[in-house]
């Protein structure tokens, strides 16, 4: 077994639990519901238990105190007020710091922090609580356990029923009775430890578990089938007769229940003798005493003793995982390594290309059967593509939740009262996009809290509620995801921005700028209007970096603001970075792919119109002026324009333009291959793809093309359009 790997799992699990804990604490601050206290308690309890297994005594000691306080909260011995909630948040951070240090002793400062926190917690502790010693007792075993022969054919069955079993019309007693038909029930222990306090106990929920010793000549599948109807609704462990290691797995798995009681039950059912149990327990304590200086990790110690098979420690971790799963109940997850997923998606990309090639050659063969077969394959391939991309889609809610803490901390630091509203948390987008958007988003949220929302006094004078609101919203719109950060603060000061911009020489003619253009100036490098430079933001870096990060994701950001009513920053991102549905067009021998989401319609350019538009760059499309981009001219391609030309009308962000191409080649699934670093400066092209016939097609970057059209329009009066791109593309 790889203990390090196990420890990594512990770290990952703990981080998740700590994240959950943070969310719960923040929820509690708002609502103070008792149901969440249970979840909170479980988080801390599970971390404590797992830390105990790895011998992280300092973590155990600290979490123990926190756990106790949560327990008292749960029992309503104390009530949760703001100061305690804030303190618990700090404790969470401390636990996180301790866990991250792993087996290392915490440093001087960390220890001092811990002591300070413990001291701060004292008022909430029960009077009779002494400084915690090591509360966790992990049952261990001495090697001689292996020598014991199989104790007949007694199966040990441990079952914990889910809360809803009774409501689903199942009766656990019935299952036990039915077990009796398989053989002889030697012993049953009823585990009622999960029964909550009488006033919170729901009489229609099931809180019981059972340890059953069954003497039967049968197999595991048969026993399992007894519980078939509740299989998803209960935790079932079946230990075959004479299985040694498994019994200890069982012990550890049951760790969150009282160890001593569990031990007693196993003794009672004849699975272990009392002497063996006592030996195991005292053996551990002795070792602990001897190695007080730097205790080895318990898991390692056990393996050294030869007492446990690797399965043991894994089982302990599995326990932790199961508790988590029980918490999430409905949703089940499989943890997959990101690079495996990445490899899969790459392969799917290749598959898409290969299937396009197969389709092409099938078309050429004029064989109906081949054609049909290839067609059905390509339908499946398309589905696989969609499904595998979905694997990477995650709801943005988790990222949003993280900002609760950011807003809370920052607003406290600034002495403002600010609420964070979250909507559209279920909106999904690519995991890689999520990861990369977190930083820019954090910056925007901090900005909103710091600069957007005014101080309470100012707000009241302005006739607004003293509590400011920052709203995070996400939704899908035509192949993009839109994330909005909105505040109800003072809004952007148009005049001040303009003044500053002139000062910095960013604009020359301040009169002719629209509001939108003025507000967009905040994204210019080195621009900041904050009057007071706080340590949070306002140092003149940031918005330009935000914009650059977003553009790197093929996204855009825009700002909308109304004086006195607030500011909205709207980020528009593509759903995924890997594959897009494209529309394939041809100009001479070169192929271009237009992302299908941008295509509005296709129109044929009649010979008359061809003549008419030769001298100008727009066309009358059903009474609308549509600017035209001749791709042949724009990319300086060789060859004369074809006899027939077509217009692909593209739209993005409320703007439209017509791309003049020779041929329309239809829809095409496009696997984006990024261009080499040599071409990073290239605007108008976002990537390349390989066609079925092996040729390279370039993917057009519609937003940047459109913005070029806009700036081009401005300069059109002075000079006719000249080829703007050098012959970069000739080789394709």
């Amino acid at each position, binding site marked *: 077994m790889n203990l390090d790997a196990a420890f990594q799992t512990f770290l990952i699990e703990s981080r998740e639990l700590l994240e959950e804990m943070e969310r719960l604490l923040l929820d509690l601050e708002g609502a103070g519901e008792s149901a969440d206290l249970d979840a909170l308690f479980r988080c801390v309890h599970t971390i404590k238990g797992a830390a105990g297994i790895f011998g992280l005594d300092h973590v155990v000691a600290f979490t123990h105190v926190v756990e106790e306080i949560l327990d008292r909260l749960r029992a309503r011995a104390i009530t949760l007020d703001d100061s305690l909630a804030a303190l618990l948040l700090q404790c969470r951070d401390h636990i996180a710091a301790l866990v991250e240090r792993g087996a290392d002793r915490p440093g001087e400062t960390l220890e001092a922090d811990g002591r300070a926190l413990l001291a701060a917690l004292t008022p909430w502790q029960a009077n009779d609580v002494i400084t915690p010693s090591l509360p966790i007792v992990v049952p261990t075993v001495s090697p001689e356990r292996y020598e014991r022969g199989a104790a007949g054919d007694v199966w040990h069955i441990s079952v914990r029923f889910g809360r809803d079993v009774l409501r689903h019309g199942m009766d656990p007693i019935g299952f036990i009775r039915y077990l009796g038909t398989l053989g002889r029930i030697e012993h049953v222990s009823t585990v009622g430890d999960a029964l909550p306090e009488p006033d919170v106990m729901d*009489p229609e929920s099931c809180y019981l578990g059972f340890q059953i010793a069954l003497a039967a000549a049968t197999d595991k599948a048969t026993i399992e089938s007894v519980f078939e109807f509740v299989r998803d609704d209960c935790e079932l462990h079946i230990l075959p007769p004479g299985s040694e290691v498994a019994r200890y797995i069982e012990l550890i798995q049951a760790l969150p229940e009282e160890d001593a009681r569990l031990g007693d039950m196993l003794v009672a059912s004849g699975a272990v003798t009392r002497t063996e149990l006592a030996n195991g327990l005292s053996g551990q304590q002795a070792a602990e005493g001897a190695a007080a200086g730097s205790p080895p990790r318990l898991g390692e110690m056990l393996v050294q003793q030869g007492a446990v098979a690797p399965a043991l420690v894994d089982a302990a971790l599995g326990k932790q995982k199961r508790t988590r799963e029980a918490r999430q109940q409905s949703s089940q997850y499989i943890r997959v390594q990101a690079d495996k997923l990445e490899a899969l998606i790459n392969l799917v990309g290749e598959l898409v290309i290969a299937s396009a090639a197969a389709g092409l050659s099938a078309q050429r063969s004029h064989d109906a059967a081949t054609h049909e077969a290839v067609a059905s394959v390509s339908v499946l391939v398309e589905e696989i593509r969609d499904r595998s991309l979905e694997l990477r889609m995650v709801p943005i809610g988790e990222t949003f939740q993280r900002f609760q803490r950011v807003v809370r901390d920052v607003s406290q630091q600034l002495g403002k009262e600010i609420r964070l509203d979250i909507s559209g948390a279920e909106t999904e987008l690519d995991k890689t996009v999520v990861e990369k958007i977190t930083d820019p988003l954090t910056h925007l949220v901090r900005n909103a809290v710091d600069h957007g929302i005014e101080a309470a006094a100012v707000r009241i004078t302005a006739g607004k509620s003293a509590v400011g609101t920052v709203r995070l919203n996400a939704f899908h719109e035509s192949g993009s995801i839109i994330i909005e950060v909105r505040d109800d603060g003072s809004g952007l000061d148009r005049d001040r921005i303009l003044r500053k911009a002139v000062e910095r020489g960013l604009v020359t003619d301040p009169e002719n700028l629209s509001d939108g253009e003025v507000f967009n100036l905040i994204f210019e490098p080195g621009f900041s209007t904050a009057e007071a430079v706080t340590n949070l933001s306002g140092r003149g870096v940031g918005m330009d970096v935000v914009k650059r990060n977003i553009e790197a994701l093929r996204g855009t950001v825009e700002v909308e603001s109304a004086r006195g009513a607030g500011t909205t920053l709207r980020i528009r991102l593509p759903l995924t970075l890997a594959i897009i549905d494209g529309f394939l067009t041809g100009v001479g021998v070169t192929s271009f792919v237009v992302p299908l989401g941008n295509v509005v319609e296709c129109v044929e350019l009649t010979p008359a119109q061809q003549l008419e538009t030769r001298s100008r760059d727009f066309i009358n499309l059903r009474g609308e002026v549509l600017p035209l981009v001749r791709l042949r001219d724009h990319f300086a391609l060789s060859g004369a324009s074809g006899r027939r030309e077509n217009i692909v009308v593209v739209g993005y962000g409320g703007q439209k333009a017509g791309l003049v191409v020779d041929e329309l080649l239809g829809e095409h699934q496009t696997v984006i291959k990024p261009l080499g670093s040599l071409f990073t400066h290239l605007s108008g092209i976002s990537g390349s793809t390989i066609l079925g016939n092996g040729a390279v097609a370039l993917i057009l970057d519609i937003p940047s093309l459109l913005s070029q059209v806009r700036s081009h329009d401005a300069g059109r009066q002075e000079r006719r359009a000249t080829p703007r791109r050098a012959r970069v593309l000739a080789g394709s």
Partner: protein
Amino acid sequence: MAALVSVQGAEQLRVEGELAIQFAAELKDTLLRSVQATGEVTLDLSGVSEVDTAGIQLLLLAKRAAAAVGCRLRYINHSPAVVDVVELLNLSATFGDPILLAVAAGADR
């Protein structure tokens, strides 16, 4: 077949019919109400025709609640249905009340 706890004086309770999930909420309230005060409460189970997990769970809960407030709660006159389940789940020690009919039923253990 309603299972109700009828109060005969303050300390004498009796369950009639099914000690089961359908009546669990009702039973819980009555049971917990009667074990509030310190003193001695007996629950006559002779009229119980059926017991399920929810019922057993309530009996466990009531015992625990009673112990917490220092009330002595006794289950008496277990009906065959109750004995059957208590024996199956090996709860007689947990409940701690003498089961008079148990001699025959528990003999195979």
